[in-house]
């Protein structure tokens, strides 16, 4: 825990300019709210969803992102996902489910003091890869894990 925090602190210092820019953006949550990434959330394939949410689909695979998800999800309507990034200067995170109709589930913008840790629950229509994409210092990194779904969570 403490180690992660040190790394993050160093990261935010190194990425001071980036952090400041993000900080300015974050002071106006109303403006952020107006910009729900409709195209990204309605995109039907992973690349388009990533481009819409993170600016590019070109993400390097990284083992510094920890994606915690069950191997087998008995109920696809509630799949707990935890993403922790150990990459310095992580500013944004997105969680995608490759097999869903619209792969992008959620995207997060972290404040300057926020740790690169998000835990939430997503729906999965069928067995597929869960992809975590992280933006750090303007570069994209991703990691993925296959989750087997026995009962789908999309549709009736």
């Amino acid at each position, binding site marked *: *825990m*403490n180690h992660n*925090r040190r790394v*993050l*602190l160093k990261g935010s210092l190194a990425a001071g300019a980036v952090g400041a820019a993000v900080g300015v953006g*974050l*002071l106006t*949550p109303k403006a*952020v*709210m107006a910009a*729900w*990434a409709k195209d990204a*959330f309605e995109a039907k394939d992973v690349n388009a969803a990533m481009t819409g*949410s993170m600016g590019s689909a070109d993400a390097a695979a990284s083992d510094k992102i920890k994606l915690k998800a069950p191997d087998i999800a008995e109920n696809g*309507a*509630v*799949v707990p996902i935890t993403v922790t990034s150990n990459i310095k200067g992580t500013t944004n995170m997105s969680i995608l*489910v490759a097999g*869903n*109709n*619209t792969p*992008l*589930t*959620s*995207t*997060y*913008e*972290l*404040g300057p*003091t*926020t*740790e690169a*840790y*998000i*835990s*939430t*629950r*997503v*729906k*999965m229509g069928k067995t597929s890869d869960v992809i975590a994409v992280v933006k750090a210092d303007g570069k994209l990194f991703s990691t993925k894990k296959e989750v087997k779904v026995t009962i789908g*969570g*999309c*549709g*009736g």
Partner: protein
Amino acid sequence: MAKSIKLRAKAKDGVATVKALISHPMETGLRKDKKSGKPIPAEFIQEVVCESAGKTVLSAQWGSAISKNPFISFKFSGAKSGDSIKVSWVDNKGNSDSLESNIK
């Protein structure tokens, strides 16, 4: 939509762990009513913003693929016990709610 949010925030060694549970149907718009066969209109949270002591610590955009009654947990540093913490959400129909609490 009052009281849709349950919020717990705990500070330890300067790092606050925030957990929020929101009551919301999170309809995708793809499901059909079993009796009438008509599609159930989409209703899902699009924006979640969390502020602490006047600063935004997390702003999230959600799609319809977040589970019903969404749960979110995250951490941020530089927090101390007694700081204010506020979570607010807006859905695609324009409904919204927010809750302000204190970090324990």
